[in-house]
């Protein structure tokens, strides 16, 4: 069966499900809607796998081509600038297809159990389908504008999912925040697109990323040498595009929306805010990687620094959070920043492009284990009905499957071999080491911190000791619809790690910056170092949180102030709040609204008032006395005469 011909189904099926469940869902029985959505998505996943596998198999060992499976014009803006909707297949989009379909399918299944009995179950599935559609559309975009279109769509479905519990004010706030912050970043993305398209007169990725002789000709020829305010236009444009990606991928300083986004249902967080949507930024940079690499290397460097800063920054915050989903959220930010760093330090072609491969590889593995973590967290929350660590502890017996899978995921993220996370992370650190020692140092520390806060989480949940007030009711393992996805994902985490370790189906054979497969040698020296860091982190966590002791408090009391800062996320939210409330609303919007009502509108009213008072003021002219009429009359004649004569003279 030729799966490539089924490509339109990849987009059509989820969209159809969105429409069907969205329009008619309220008439269906919830369970039916859920199963319908899930099964149709399963079909979609099969098509995705088929496409990806066929693609890789067909081109294995050769240069992976950029295949456009279909592409139709959607809107003609100018003769050259045409927005089309299409399907671009290349290594990274094929990888993404796998990631998305896997995680999304798991979430679909998981949600059947997790969301059972919720109000708006059908709505949930409708939006989930919309999201899947949008995300798939995003990754297969043939042109930058298609990407932007789906980019917006994922944003909105994220909004709808975060605000799923719309009666909760905090959820609504979080949804608004997520949407507006990402929208703000999207604006830069759009401006970037505008600038690029203005010069290159194309949106098409095929043309935009075509590399010839170590440069991207279309960009180089049309934009090279043009500067604006001392900066080259290319840099400005691609930096703006990166900012768009930074918004979606929650890079500092746009990261603030992601932790709040955890207000949504946990499976949705797993899908959107851990595995897929948030890596869109990384994907975007990877998509345009040749442009960055050849035409704007300085931007790439900036990306590396921003990534490095974000990763350590959020890792530190993660250490101090008590809400398990928030810990995971900050961990996500940190891990995505890792991927950004990897891209930032990457070169182009072969071994040089190690960072690129590592980034994509980390994206893949991270998606799996982070989704796993979130779903595990979901299972835990499902069991204890709280997000707070204080309500947990000693759950390993009560939730055995969750415990096992969670542990695997923690080990993976902490970078312990042979789990997948170890290899992907290790390659990033290697790439950083080769490119930039500062970044390497930071990433190294982050590796340790990651291990620490993940195991803090792990120990705190599964060991530590039961909460002070006991559980509200006895926690129990989740239903099978929820545990099966956990197991599947855990299996993937383990298997991909082992495959890599044995050099079977090595990721770099499929994904590389120049689309040519190559083999990666594991740099054991650096790898050992990073394992060391991971182990140290785990040990510290073990020391502090394995059993219920006063140790954490003691430590905290030593570093009270930094702890508070970290706990309060370095007050970035407060700064944002200040800016929006006190500056944008109070200092801009309200004055403008005031100005409009009182000055502009006031001016119109003033005209009316003026006319009225002129009317009142002149009424004495007509005082009812016929003699004053005559006086006005004759004076009129005299004045007119005088003026006319003077005019004549």
């Amino acid at each position, binding site marked *: 069966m030729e799966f490539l011909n089924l490509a339109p189904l990849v987009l059509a099926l989820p969209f159809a499900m969105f429409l069907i469940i969205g329009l008619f869902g309220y008439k269906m029985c919830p369970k039916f809607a859920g199963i319908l959505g899930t099964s149709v998505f399963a079909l979609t996943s099969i098509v995705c796998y088929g496409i990806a596998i066929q693609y890789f198999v067909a081109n294995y060992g050769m240069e992976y081509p950029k295949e456009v499976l279909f592409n139709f014009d959607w809107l003609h803006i100018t003769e050259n600038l045409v927005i089309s909707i299409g399907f671009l297949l290349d290594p990274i989009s094929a990888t993404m297809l796998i990631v998305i379909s896997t995680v999304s399918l798991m979430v679909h299944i998981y949600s059947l159990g997790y969301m059972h009995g919720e109000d708006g179950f059908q709505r949930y599935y409708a939006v989930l389908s919309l999201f899947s559609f949008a995300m798939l559309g995003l990754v297969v975009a043939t042109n930058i504008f298609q990407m932007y279109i789906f980019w917006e769509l994922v944003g909105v479905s994220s909004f709808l999912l975060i605000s799923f519990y719309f009666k909760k004010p905090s959820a609504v706030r979080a949804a608004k925040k997520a949407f507006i912050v990402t929208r703000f970043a999207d604006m830069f993305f759009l401006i970037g697109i505008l600038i690029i398209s203005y010069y290159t007169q194309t949106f098409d990725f095929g043309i935009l990323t075509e590399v010839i002789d170590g440069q991207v000709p279309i960009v180089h020829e049309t934009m090279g040498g043009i500067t604006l305010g001392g900066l080259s236009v290319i840099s400005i444009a691609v930096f703006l595009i990166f900012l768009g990606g930074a918004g979606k991928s929650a890079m500092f300083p746009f990261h603030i929306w992601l932790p709040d986004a955890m207000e949504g249902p946990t499976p949705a967080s797993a899908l959107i805010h851990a595995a897929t949507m948030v890596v869109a930024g990384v994907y975007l940079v990877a998509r345009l990687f040749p442009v960055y690499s050849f035409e704007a290397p300085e931007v790439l460097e900036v990306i590396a620094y921003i990534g490095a800063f974000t990763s350590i920054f959020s890792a530190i915050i993660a250490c101090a959070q008590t809400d398990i989903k928030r810990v995971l959220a900050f961990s996500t930010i940190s891990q995505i920043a890792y991927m950004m760093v990897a891209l930032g330090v990457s070169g182009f072609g072969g071994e040089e492009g190690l960072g690129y491969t590592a980034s994509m590889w980390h994206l893949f593995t991270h998606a799996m284990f982070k989704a796993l973590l979130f779903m595990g967290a979901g299972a835990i929350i499902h069991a204890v009905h709280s997000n707070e660590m204080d309500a947990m502890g000693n759950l390993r017996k009560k939730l055995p499957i969750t415990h096992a899978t969670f542990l695997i995921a923690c080990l993976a993220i902490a970078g312990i071999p042979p789990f997948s996370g170890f290899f992907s992370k290790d390659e990033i650190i290697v790439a950083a080491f080769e490119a930039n020692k500062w970044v390497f140092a930071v990433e190294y520390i982050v590796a340790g911190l990651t291990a620490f806060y993940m195991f803090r989480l792990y120990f705190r949940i599964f060991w530590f000791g039961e909460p002070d007030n006991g559980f509200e009711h006895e926690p129990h393992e989740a239903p099978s619809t929820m545990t099966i996805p956990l197991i599947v994902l855990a299996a993937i985490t383990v298997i991909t790690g082992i495959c890599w370790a044995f050099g079977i189906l090595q990721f770099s054979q499929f994904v590389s910056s120049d689309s040519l497969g190559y083999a990666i040698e594991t740099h054991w020296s650096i790898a050992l170092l990073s394992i060391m860091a991971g182990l140290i982190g785990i040990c510290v966590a073990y020391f502090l949180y394995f059993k219920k002791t006063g140790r954490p408090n003691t430590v905290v009391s030593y570093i009270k102030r930094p702890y508070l800062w970290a706990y309060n996320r370095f007050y970035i939210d407060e700064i944002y709040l200040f800016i929006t409330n006190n500056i944008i609303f109070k200092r801009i919007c309200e004055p403008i609204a005031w100005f409009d009502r009182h000055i502009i509108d006031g001016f119109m009213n003033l005209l009316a008032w003026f006319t009225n008072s002129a009317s009142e003021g002149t*009424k004495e002219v*007509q*005082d*009812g*006395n*016929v*003699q004053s009429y*005559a*006086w006005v009359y*004759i004076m009129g004649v005299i004045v007119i005469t005088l003026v006319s004569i003077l005019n004549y003279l």
Partner: protein
Amino acid sequence: MSLPLECYLVVSTLLFFIGVFGFIVRKNLISILMSIELILNAASINFIAFNRFLFPDQLEGFMYSLFIIVVAAAETAVAISIIINVYRKKKNIDVKSINELKY
């Protein structure tokens, strides 16, 4: 040598503005009407003077003056009857009594 036309014009203009002055300052309606007669006569003098001195070939100004007199008579008749009417209504012909309608 007779006096130039200007003399007549000066007289008529003075008379005209005396009439205007009277119209504006007098207190009762009949006096005001009298002032109007002055104005009309001023115009009349003008017509006659122009006719006599500048355009003697035709009797245009002459006729005009004649008709002014006729019209003035009619006008005065109507005006006085109206004033009488006002008097009946207001028992007064002070000009101040006719300023109920204003603004």
